């Protein structure tokens, strides 16, 4: 049978596809059902973020950082704001630090809920998506309570936050957190230990530790491969050193270390850790304090540059800001974690079947707004 030569067919899992999580195109060479070569083509959502940063002042850039990673907008602007404050050596009051950590962690839970829900969709389970969006809506209500917006908040300002916490926020949070803890175990029962889900995602698309580090993959994808690296723990920024939480690392419970199931499991466990952080933050938060206290009159950092990293739900979100003393930055470069995660896709997904490749893509949890910037 070796004489008969089988050609390969080139397919486009193109910009418009239900499971590419946005406008990503995968040029795929298939031999029957097996993928022999994948080249991701991106740029369909390149919205010139860095060009905007060179023409807008520092505080005008904040809404654009929200729109880069639109699923975790709080974490994005949190990273940018911290970078500029470090550049200007602004010391933010205690209460603002706590509010920012609470908002960032809530946004992490909301982003992970969306990631797990759509990953369930990729594997073919429709109902967990609806369960998880029901809880995500509850978190969006809390955001709406504080800053009026559901998805893109422009909440983090340089030196403070836009609104103080409203009156009913604390009780609503406690009520939500108690119910949400029970829901996480419910999600584990529906999806994580579901036989078909394990069959489809365990041992599939394993990413060894060396490949992950070499490609610069960070965040839950890296922790899924067994590397214990979390910026909140290893390079504590803001007030993360005041909280006690552990960092879940992939242990290969259902398959090998670093497979799709592990990345999914790490995200599910991280949600529990975020709930702990929020609880501790809500207890220890100083009740009084004006949030607009440290707002600078003119945002005009002195000449210099800084590379500041924070832990976004997708990984190491880095901002490289160069200021030339004027009120508009000379250059802002956003190091996007999903960008490097996607660059590892062609390495770990060759040789799998077409349907497995989409499961691997879903487990990497990429957002195209952040990749194309």
């Amino acid at each position: 049978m070796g004489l008969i030569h089988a050609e390969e067919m080139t397919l486009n899992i193109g910009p418009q596809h239900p499971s590419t999580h946005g406008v990503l195109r995968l040029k795929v060479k298939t031999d029957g059902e097996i993928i022999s070569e994948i080249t991701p083509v991106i740029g369909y959502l390149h919205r010139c973020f860095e060009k905007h940063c060179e023409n807008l002042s520092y505080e005008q850039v904040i809404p654009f950082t929200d729109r880069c990673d639109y699923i975790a907008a709080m974490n994005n602007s949190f990273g940018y704001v911290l970078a500029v404050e470090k550049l200007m050596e602004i010391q933010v009051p205690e209460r603002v630090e706590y509010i920012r950590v609470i908002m960032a962690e809530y946004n992490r839970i909301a982003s992970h809920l969306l990631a797990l829900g759509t990953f369930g969709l990729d594997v073919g389970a429709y109902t967990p998506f609806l369960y998880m969006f029901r809880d995500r809506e509850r978190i969006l209500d809390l955001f709406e309570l504080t800053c009026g917006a559901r998805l893109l908040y422009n909440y983090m300002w340089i030196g403070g936050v836009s609104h103080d916490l409203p009156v009913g926020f604390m009780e609503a949070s406690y009520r939500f957190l108690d119910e949400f803890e029970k829901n996480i175990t419910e999600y584990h029962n529906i999806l994580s230990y579901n036989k078909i889900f394990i069959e489809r995602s365990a041992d599939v698309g394993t990413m060894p530790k060396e490949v992950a580090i070499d490609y610069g993959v960070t965040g839950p994808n890296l922790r899924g491969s067994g590397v214990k690296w979390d910026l909140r723990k290893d390079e504590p920024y803001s007030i993360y050193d005041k909280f006690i939480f552990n960092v879940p690392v992939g242990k290969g419970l259902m398959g090998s270390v670093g497979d799709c199931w592990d990345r999914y499991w790490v995200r599910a466990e991280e949600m529990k850790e975020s709930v702990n952080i929020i609880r501790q933050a809500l207890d220890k938060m100083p009740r009084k304090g004006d949030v607009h206290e440290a707002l600078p009159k003119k945002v005009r950092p002195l000449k210099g540059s800084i590379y500041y990293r924070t832990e976004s739900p997708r990984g190491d979100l880095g901002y490289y800001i160069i200021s030339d003393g004027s009120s508009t930055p000379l250059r802002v470069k956003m190091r996007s974690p999903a960008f490097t995660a996607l660059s590892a896709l062609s390495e770990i997904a060759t040789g799998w079947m077409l349907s497995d490749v989409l499961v691997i893509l879903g487990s990497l949890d990429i957002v195209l707004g952040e990749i194309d910037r």
Partner: protein
Amino acid sequence: MYRDFGTIFLFIIIGAVLLIAALLLAKILSPARPSKNKLSTYECGEEVEGSSWVQFNIRYYVIALIFIIFDVEVLFLFPWAVVYKDLGWLAFIEMTIFLLILIVGLIYVWKKGDLDWVKYKVKYGQGRYQKLTKEKA
């Protein structure tokens, strides 16, 4: 006897009518504005590269052949099963011989590995895909 044929004929008529009605209704009512772009093949918004008339892997042909063989085998079993009661032991022995021959064929095909539908070429396979990992080039 003839009444039965009548009902079958009636079924055929109703089936045909329903089928044609469904197709015609759609053809009549829907606005048809064919254009070159509309008739081009849909590939997620991209122009199509290459063609789908490629030489497929041979294993699909072999699998199809094996399926047809065992499908026809079941075909022979149906009439036999209907009149099985009044044929007695002789028919039973004949049928078991027939089945045995085919089972030998199945074992041969299974051992030869033609039933392996999928030939993975995984780069970092672990766990159940361990043996499929390509030798580290």
